[in-house]
C-alpha cells in the first residue's frame, strides 16, 4: 500500500516534469513562429529602421503610402481577380471531378483518386511554372505573362485541394448511401445530385473555396515566374518592395497577413459550424 502510493507520487512528479518540458518547447516554438510577425508589425509602424534592433519613431505613414501607391492597389486587384477566378473555375471543375472520382473509385478507379490527392505533394509548383514557361513562350502559344495563364496556373495548383476536400466529405457523409435512399424515394439522378449531394457538400465547398482563395492570394513561386509587370500579384510586388523602404514592405506584408489570416479563420469556422 505504502509502496504503491510512493511510486504513484513519483510518477506524478515525472508527469509534471514532462509537462513542463512540453510547455517549454511549445513556448520556444511559439516565439519562433510569432517573432517574425511581431517584428513585421513593429516595422510597419516604425519610422526609420536601419542597422538597429528596433525601428525608431512611430508612424502610420507606410500604410497611407500603400493606400496611395497605385502599383500596390493594382497588385491587390490582380490578386483578387486571380483568386476569385480560380475559385469560380475550381467550383465548376472540382464538383464533377470529385463526384465522379467518388463513384469511379468504387468501380476500381481508386488510382485516379490517389493521383489527384498526391499531386500537390508529388509535383512541386515550380515544375509547373517551368513547364508553363517552356510551353507558353512559343510563337504557337505566346501567352506567358497574361492574366488568363496566371489564373490557369492557380487553378491547376489549387484544384487538388478543393477536390480532396470535397472527396473527403463525400466519403465521410457516405453520400452514395444517401443517393440510394433518395433514389428509392423517387429521385432521378439529377434530383439526387441537386437535392441531396449539392446541399450536403455546401459547407465543404465553401471552406474549400476559402482555402483555394488563401492559397492563391499567398502564392509566390509560380506567380513570380509567370506574371508580367502589368499584372503582378500582391506577393510578387511585395518582394520587390523589400528592396526599397523596409517600413513600407512591412506594412504591405501585414496587410497580406491579415487577408490570409482572415480567410483561414473564416475557413476553419465554416468547418466547425458543420453539425
Amino acid at each position, binding site marked *: 500500500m505504502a509502496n504503491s502510493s510512493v511510486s504513484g507520487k513519483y510518477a506524478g512528479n515525472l508527469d509534471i516534469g514532462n509537462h513542463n518540458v512540453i510547455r517549454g518547447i511549445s513556448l520556444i516554438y511559439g516565439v519562433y513562429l510569432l517573432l517574425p510577425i511581431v517584428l513585421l508589425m513593429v516595422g510597419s509602424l516604425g519610422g526609420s529602421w536601419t542597422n538597429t534592433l528596433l525601428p525608431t519613431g512611430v508612424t502610420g505613414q507606410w500604410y497611407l503610402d500603400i493606400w496611395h501607391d497605385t502599383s500596390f492597389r493594382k497588385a491587390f486587384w490582380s490578386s483578387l481577380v486571380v483568386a476569385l477566378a480560380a475559385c469560380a473555375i475550381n467550383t465548376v471543375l472540382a464538383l464533377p471531378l470529385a463526384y465522379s472520382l467518388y463513384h469511379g473509385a468504387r468501380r476500381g478507379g481508386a488510382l485516379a483518386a490517389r493521383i489527384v490527392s498526391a499531386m500537390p505533394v508529388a509535383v512541386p509548383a515550380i515544375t509547373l511554372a517551368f513547364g508553363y514557361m517552356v510551353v507558353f513562350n512559343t510563337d504557337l502559344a505566346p501567352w506567358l505573362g497574361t492574366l488568363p495563364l496566371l489564373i490557369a496556373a492557380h487553378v491547376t495548383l489549387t484544384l487538388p485541394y478543393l477536390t480532396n476536400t470535397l472527396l473527403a466529405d463525400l466519403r465521410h*457523409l*457516405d453520400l452514395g*448511401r*444517401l443517393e*440510394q*435512399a*433518395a*433514389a*428509392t*424515394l*423517387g*429521385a*432521378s439522378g439529377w*434530383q439526387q445530385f441537386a*437535392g*441531396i449531394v449539392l*446541399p*450536403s457538400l*455546401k459547407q465543404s465547398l465553401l471552406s474549400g473555396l476559402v482555402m483555394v482563395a488563401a492559397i492563391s492570394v499567398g502564392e509566390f513561386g509560380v506567380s513570380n515566374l509567370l506574371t508580367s509587370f502589368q499584372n503582378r500579384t500582391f506577393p510578387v510586388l511585395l518582394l520587390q518592395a523589400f528592396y526599397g523602404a523596409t517600413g513600407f514592405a512591412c506594412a504591405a506584408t501585414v496587410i497580406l497577413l491579415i487577408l490570409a489570416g482572415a480567410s483561414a479563420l473564416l475557413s476553419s469556422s465554416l468547418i466547425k459550424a458543420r*453539425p
Partner: protein
Amino acid sequence: MNLALDNVSYHYPGSTQGLHELSLNVCAGELVAVIGPSGSGKSTLLKLVSGLETGHTGRIVFGGQDMSSTPVHQRRMGMVFQSYALFPHLSVLDNVAYGLKLRKVPVAERHRRAQELLGIVGLASYAKRDIGQLSGGQQQRVALARALAIDPLALLLDEPLSALDASVRGHLRDEIRAIQQRFNATTLLVTHDQEEALVMADRVAMLKDGRLLQIATPREIYQQPTSRAVAEFVGLSTILPARVSAPGRIDLGFAELFADTGARAVGTGLHAMVRPEHIQADPPPTCVNRLQGHPGAQRYLGALTRYDFEVPGASKPFLAESAVPAARAIAVAPEHIRLLDH
C-alpha cells in the same frame, strides 16, 4: 400487393457470388425475413427488388406486373437501410416529406402527412429537430416513416436493427412489426440475426451461396429444418453424423439411438440434430436413448442453464438446456431427433 421473384439469377462480375435461379413469393401484407450468412446473396436480393442493382435474369413481379426494367426511382419501394441514410441537411419532418416533395404534393399536405407518420412512429414532437440530434433508434424510426410516406408497393428492410444497441433493438423490433401489420405492408426483411427473423416474420427464407434452401414459417423452419445448413443457422442445436443401422435405429458411432428413420434404407449416411431444450437431464435408467457422461461448460441464463454434456466417444458435446444441468446422463426422446439428409 403481391411480390414475386420468378427464377431470378444475378452474377457479380468476376465473382461466383450472386443469386442462382431464385423463386420466392411474398403475399400481400406478409413479412418475409430473408436470412443467411454473409455472402449468401440476401442483400443482393433486396437490391434487385429495390432496383438499386440491375442486370438480373428472371422476373421480379409486383401485383402481376414485371418491374425488372423499371428504374429504381420509379419503383415505389420503401427502403430502410442499416445505416439509416437520413439526409443530414434536412429536418426530421423534411426527411419524411422528401418523397412526397418529389411527387409534387403541396407543402401543407405533405407536411401534414409527414407529421402524421412521425406520430405513428412515436416522434411527433421531433419534427423540427436536426437529424444529428436523434439517437440511432429514433433515426431508424424516421427512416421507417420516410419509407412509408411514399405509400410504397413493398417495404424493404435492409438489416434495419443491426446498428442499434441490444436494448433498443428488441423494442424497435416489436414496433416495426406492429407498424408493418397496421399498414398491411408487403415486406422483405433482410437480416443476419436469425432470432430477429423468427420473432418478426410470417415466413423465413434461408439463403446460402445464392440459393434458397428453405422457406417456411418460423415454427416450421426451427422445428423441421430440411438441411444441415438451415439447422445450423437457425437456433441452437447439436448436429452429429449418423447412419441408419436398422429401421427406426441410428448409429452415432459412440451410441445407437431410436429415431424416426422413415423410409430411409439401412446404411444411409445422414446427420442427427437435437435442440437443447429437448435434452432431458438425468433421466430414469430405463429411459430410451439414454447417454451417460458428464457436464462441461455451463452458462447460467436465469430460468435455465445452458450447458455442454460430454458423452465418451462423441466428437463434440451435446448442447443442452435445463433448470438443473445433468450430472450423469441425458436422454433424447426419439421424436425429438431430427434427421437431416443433406
